[in-house]
């Protein structure tokens, strides 16, 4: 299912009456690691990095999720990646950190529809309902590490490494059909 990896356009993968799964368009992705005083990095990024795991922040074209005590996932438009890298690189000496471009490492699945949260329960052991809207979590979907963004009560994004995406998408597709049949 390489098209998941190499396709550059959003595409629906599974459509049910109550839940949909589709592939999001490509996005720039940066993994930021840093400790201590984040002021300089905040300034460079033009936002305040959230320091509570699961919290998100956003600024012009830039969206960030705190994944760990010293780890953030940045989503931004692909053409911004260079600029952000340059801005941070300038700080390397004074404020040591790690910024790695992983735009090509993973894809994002969009999951929405009235029973989207329930669809996720076929693979996620943690309580989906307990994730506040506007936050995100790194978790496991059928033992695959994923990053789950909750954009609305029934709207999610799921970041999955390329080679795991077909498995995750395949399960979600099965789940969609199941839910559709249940509701029919």
């Amino acid at each position, binding site marked *: *299912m*390489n098209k998941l990896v190499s396709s550059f356009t959003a595409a629906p993968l599974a459509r049910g009456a109550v839940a949909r799964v589709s592939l999001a368009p490509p996005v720039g992705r940066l993994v930021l690691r840093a400790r201590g005083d984040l002021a300089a990095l905040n300034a460079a990024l033009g936002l305040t990095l959230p320091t509570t795991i699961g919290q998100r922040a956003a600024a012009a074209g830039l969206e960030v999720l705190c994944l760990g005590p010293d780890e953030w996932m940045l989503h931004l438009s692909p053409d911004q990646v260079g600029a952000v890298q340059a801005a941070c690189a300038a700080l390397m000496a004074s404020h*040591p950190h*790690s910024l790695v471009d*992983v735009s090509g490492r993973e894809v994002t699945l969009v999951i929405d529809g009235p029973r989207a949260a329930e669809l996720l329960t076929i693979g996620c052991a943690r309580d989906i309902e307990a994730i506040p809207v506007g936050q995100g979590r790194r978790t496991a979907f059928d033992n695959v590490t994923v990053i789950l963004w909750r954009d609305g009560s029934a709207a999610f994004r799921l970041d999955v*490494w390329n080679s795991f995406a077909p498995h995750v998408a395949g399960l979600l597709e099965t*789940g969609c059909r199941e839910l559709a049949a*249940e509701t029919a």
Partner: protein
Amino acid sequence: MRSCRVPGRGRVDASRPVGFTFDGRRYQGAAGDTVASALLANGVHLMGRSFKYHRPRGPVSAGSEEPNALVGTRRGPGRFEPNTRATVQEIWEGLEVTSQNRFPSLRFDVSAVNDAGYMLFSAGFYYKTFMWPRGFWDKVYEPFIRRAAGLGVSPTEEDPDTYASRNLHCDVLIVGAGPAGLAAARAAAVEGLRVVLVDENAEAGGTLLSEPQVRIDGRPAWDWLADELAALKGLGVRIMTRTTAIGYYHQNMVGLCEKLTDHLAQLPADTPRERLWRVRARWVVLAQGAIEKPLVFNGNDRPGVMLAGAAQTYLNRYGVRVGDRPVVLTSHDSAWYAAFDLQGAGARVQAIVDTRPSVREDLLHEARALGILVKLGHTATATSGRLRVKSLRVNPVQGGQVGSPVTIACDAVLMSGGWTPSLHLFSHTQGKLAWDEAQTTFLPAETREDCVIAGAGRGLWGVQAALEDGAARGREVAAALGKDSAAQAPRVQGDRTGTGVTQIELPTDLNAGRAKAFVDYQNDVTAKDLRLAVREGMHSIEHVKRYTTNGMATDQGKLSNINGLNIAADALGRPQPQVGLTTFRPPYTPTTFGALANYHRGDHFELTRKTPIDAWAEAQGAAFEPVGQWRRAWYFPRPGEDMEAAVRRECAAVRSSLGIFDASSLGKIEVIGPDAVTFMERMYTNPWAKLGVGRCRYGLLLGDDGFIRDDGVIGRLAADRFHVTTTTGGAARVLNMMEDYLQTEWPELNVWLTSTTEQWSTVALNGPNAAKLLAPLVEGVELTEDAFPHMSCAECTVAGLPARLFRVSFTGEIGFEVNVPSPMAMQLWDRLWQDGQRYGITAYGTETMHVLRAEKGYIIVGQDTDGTVTPYDAGMGWAVGKSKPDFVGKRGLARPDLVAKNRRHLVGLLTEDGSRLEEGAQIVFDPKQPVPMTMVGHVTSSYHSQAVGRPIALALVEGGQDRMGQTVHIPMPDRTIAATITGTVFVDPENTRLKIEA
């Protein structure tokens, strides 16, 4: 065919007849029937044969505790399952039911001769015999025993159904939707609490379904039930029927199995047969009720002998009269009501036989009013009837003396030995049980889990008590969850509470030693067997269970455990609590493998990781091999080529011109930070401080035990940035190991690790023409020997794509590894493939890669090493930074056995007869020695080498590095092969081929 259906009784819909077959014969039941109720409605009691003696059996219960009425059920091809409980399986138009464990027929079964050998086949008899003559066990006895084994037959076709699973989080999970569960749900269903109510039956209501005479809040039970269920749904309670709580796991995780289609005539599309639920509840209420105990007496297993409560259920829930002339045999009040109900339904109850000398006056009064003969202070000593009970032999008992018998003709015996709480799930929590002497039963005491028990499950009898306790427990958990609940239980009229006494075997005037008084029906365990086990020294209840198999049948001891305990305790002369119950094991009822595997079958079984190039390789007809989670192109056969031919061609192409290889699955880790060098110095054996930016080096990773764990080429992209590569299978392990040391041992280091395995796809070009192909495509680096020598790396663009270019060789030829972002990998590959045509570019797979690297003596971790090999064993002492103060594995390497002489060293082997050795073949110095031989090593890699023109091999040989030129021997089944120990490099030892000619 006569009908035993009672008009106007039961909840089945007589207006909707349902046809099904039993052993090929067609029967008609009504919508809502189970197989058992439908057959009973047709006057059929005989439904199965027992395990050991093949005795004819009918249903003894009306629920999931059924040990006797087990049948095979089929729905067309692929959809057959054995050992289905007839008392649970709902009928649907066209259902095929077959009886089991009989030949040639259910009515006549030749194996019933076992029954004649009854006295011989006592508990544990097989431990005492079948030992002589010695040889007979394998040939005669065991085959005989095995043939006799089993109940139904296994399915033999693939299962066309699908199965599913979900995780569910709730505040309160209530198991059992009887009065207690319903009341608990109502009380817990307060604002903000997620409440789930599950029941294994087709409809909620539990005992209310069998007791229509009860009035609740002044209304008939069934009306109240319907309204209450609607009300609960209105309050947001999730009610799941046909859903069994199979197991209670750590910290309030309860597994549920929901049956979705087994009751349907038509299978809906996209609907799984069953769904496994992993429920995590903050509080659990167990309201599973109680199970009626059979009475243990001679002949208590004939078809037509069943529990009184079951007879009541068949009458009141299914509208079936299980007998026209039943006898009631009991030691508990509850069975009297069965007699009254059946009498009221047109049966002529022959007698109520109660073991107690006196009973409640109102019961006697009603019996008299109904004209039913009552025999108090009586025991039952025998029954007659082969395929259906014909009579019951009863005797008066006075002062322990059994008087003379009278025989009562009958067509059913409805027995009750009282009730015992359903303790299974509670026991799964490893909760403690408390013995209740008054009720001679175990009751749930404490558990570590956040769990409460309601109703009959803790020894409270009657609908009123169940409703009140349920409400109280519901309020209790609501309060524990910080909510106030004011819910009160409704008032009940027409409740039927009662008491009774507990019996061991009923007293008899016949030879007790010959009595067929069954305790575990399915496994044919009798009271006599239990007493024999105790007599033989089986003094633990677990020994008794295992020696007799009591409680090990498919009903999980639901009917037999407590009777077994009482008899064993009596035989031991110890009180029950000192003997103790055997542990109840999950699942509560047998659960299909399908449900447990749920999604993980076929395509979803286990994921297969594929690189961006995988589809191209597949289109080229590549053969693949699994490596860890990945599948990798193994070789690219052309039409008519086998593996060997393809690999020869691929090898030749690389050595003579140009090969292209997908190395994308190699692990990659970005190591960044001011302390990156320090980290690398500590992690890998090699020195890194002096490695210049833009250069790379082969790195060796050990465990702290000193043995090789992983390896890979590592490039320095900047003073504070390394691009680390690992083996394909080792990627995750290595990153975890690095994080472990970094976070736990060296938290002070300012360095971070990021996996870039899938950020970069890696295309390897190898061969004399590699540079020629690549040079024109590269911007930012000049691919000359001076500008970009072997073991260089750079960030540049290749074919216009952002790339990390490594000049490395795992083949001994000029080699490059081009890393580009995964989404662009196919673009790069296509371009190289097109431009490479002029060099006859050839795609090669892992097998060719293995051959080429072996020709150069490069190791494959996991093939040439096995977790017991040190760098020195592998001839890679050069990779160990001896002057470094420390690195992972340094101290381990200094342990006595790792520095000992004569360790096994990696060497080359050339066979003297030019034959190719088998990988894994063992090596000896002295081929003449007798077995067991002293082995001194084994062949780790062996290939036909196109370049050398003969087979080559790598091997681990004791002291090998000091035995160059010596001959060793490889004894094979047919012959012994002699081979000469050589160095590990077979091709171009001077590495001249690595040079790019100007």
